[in-house]
């Protein structure tokens, strides 16, 4: 490979596409995942509004979705993607399967963050006459914030990993560059470059979100 402007532009475009895929699908997956995580915790047998049947069914659906390998999900979602985005190619087209894979994962991450909230604090809020909504908004979410941010660091980097698989089904981003040039054309150097860029992106995301979590956490003296 040569470091001409075409290559650089291609890589820059790849970085842009990857970041777009990752952050757009993370955002959408969180919009779906947070309410699901809340429902999992709140409706649990020992939750603040127990609806065990709903909780069990939701848990089952989430487990089912999580056990489908992402590469299969990519193929299964093709018709859905075409219906939503209008195409099955490019960076945009990878967002629906990424969201479908990430939302249940995020629901579980959110669930575990909420479960870390001290039961005594929830009880105190109940003793003050808080409604279920008030407990969710004013106790669970703010108290779990540092843990939610740590979870986001893990979730977003996992989504980044998934997005790299998009290359196989004609998605965009750094993953498809690595596959198309590095794998199909045996340009090992190109593969290395894309992988290194991915490593750097993972580092930046991980560190940024950990820092956000630390800064927001008031439990540290």
């Amino acid at each position, binding site marked *: 490979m040569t470091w001409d402007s075409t290559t650089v532009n291609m890589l820059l475009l790849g970085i842009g596409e990857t970041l777009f895929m990752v952050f757009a699908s993370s955002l959408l997956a969180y919009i779906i995942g947070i309410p699901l995580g809340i429902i999992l915790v709140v409706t649990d047998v020992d939750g603040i509004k127990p609806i065990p049947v709903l909780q069990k069914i939701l848990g089952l659906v989430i487990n089912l979705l999580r056990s489908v390998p992402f590469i299969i999900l990519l193929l299964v979602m093709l018709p859905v993607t075409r219906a939503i985005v209008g195409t099955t190619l490019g960076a945009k087209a990878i967002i629906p399967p990424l969201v479908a894979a990430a939302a249940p994962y995020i629901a579980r991450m959110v669930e575990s963050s909420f479960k870390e909230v001290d039961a005594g604090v929830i009880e105190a809020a109940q003793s003050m006459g808080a409604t279920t909504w008030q407990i969710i908004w004013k*106790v669970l979410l703010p108290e779990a914030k540092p843990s939610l941010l740590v979870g986001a660091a893990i979730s977003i980097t996992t989504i980044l990993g998934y997005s790299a698989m998009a290359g196989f089904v004609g998605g965009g981003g750094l993953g498809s560059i690595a596959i198309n040039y590095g794998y199909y054309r045996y340009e090992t150097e190109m593969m290395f470059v894309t992988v290194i860029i991915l490593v750097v992106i993972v580092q930046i995301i991980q560190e940024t979100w950990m820092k956000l979590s630390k800064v927001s956490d008031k*439990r540290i003296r």
Partner: protein
Amino acid sequence: MEQQNPIIQLKNLGKQFKTSNGTVTALDDINLDIYPGEIFGIIGLSGAGKSTLVRCINYLETPTSGSVIFEGVNLGGKGQAVIRQARRSMGMIFQQFNLLSQRNVLQNVCFPMELSGTPKKEAVKRAQELLTMVGLEDRMKAYPAQLSGGQKQRVAIARAMATNPKVLLCDEATSALDPNTTKQILELLKRINKEMGVTVIVITHEMSVIEAICDRVAIIDQSHIAEAGKVSEIFSNPKTAIGRQLILGDAARQVALGKDRQLRIIFDGRESSEPVISNLVLACKTPVNIMYAETRDVGGTAMGQMLIQIPEDETEARRIINYLKTIKVTFEEVR
């Protein structure tokens, strides 16, 4: 006090928990009347059911039988809105303080007012007043992690008082604190009771807490109320084994040690100026062995108790007992 209507009435209250090992009865046939303005203690060993009892009062636990009547309204079968309203009239503090860790002191005290929809300005003003009352006016911007245990409990008390409750429920509120801090927190509770007229219900396993601030006490043992009454009366004359165990404390161990006849003499303040034991020895011409003695401050009066070992000899023992009867000292025989 008893002429007033009770603020809280518990009638035949029962609570059972279903566990994988069958049904566990936490409370059975609890009957209590708590009057406005008093400090009422509920004491028991761990596992006796006292924490469940206090949670039934504000319906954090729903009783499985009987009823909780708050200000004449039976809370049983009422909707969530009624329960929430009742809870706002009953502040609660906890052993582990349960402050919101991501909010500072001022925001913690504002929290219950946020829940009830008090305008922000008004809430902040009230929170500042309350924090001044508990002596934390200079720590308003601190976070709970930066406070000591005693300070955290002060914040919790200010928070519990924010919505002007009529009742303050204290669930082992001093059990995580050192003796000195415990004393300060108890004094604060007493002050709140006196100055704001709030009825205080204290749950504890420590007799010293009851003695320090309570007017009346109920002893709970194995899901039942063993005995209840004025603290001074229960102290001078416990009728049940559990009452004796809780009041005698260390002395109970002494009783278990000795095999001889022992008398427990109770001094309720009147006799403290008289040399009762010296006079007893001189009058009966019999030596007695003092096994244990202490003086405590029970509701403002110096209450003392002493365990003495009396001779095996029946005539000498009777002489001592008769002497104690004639000088009208409260005593009982323990073995």
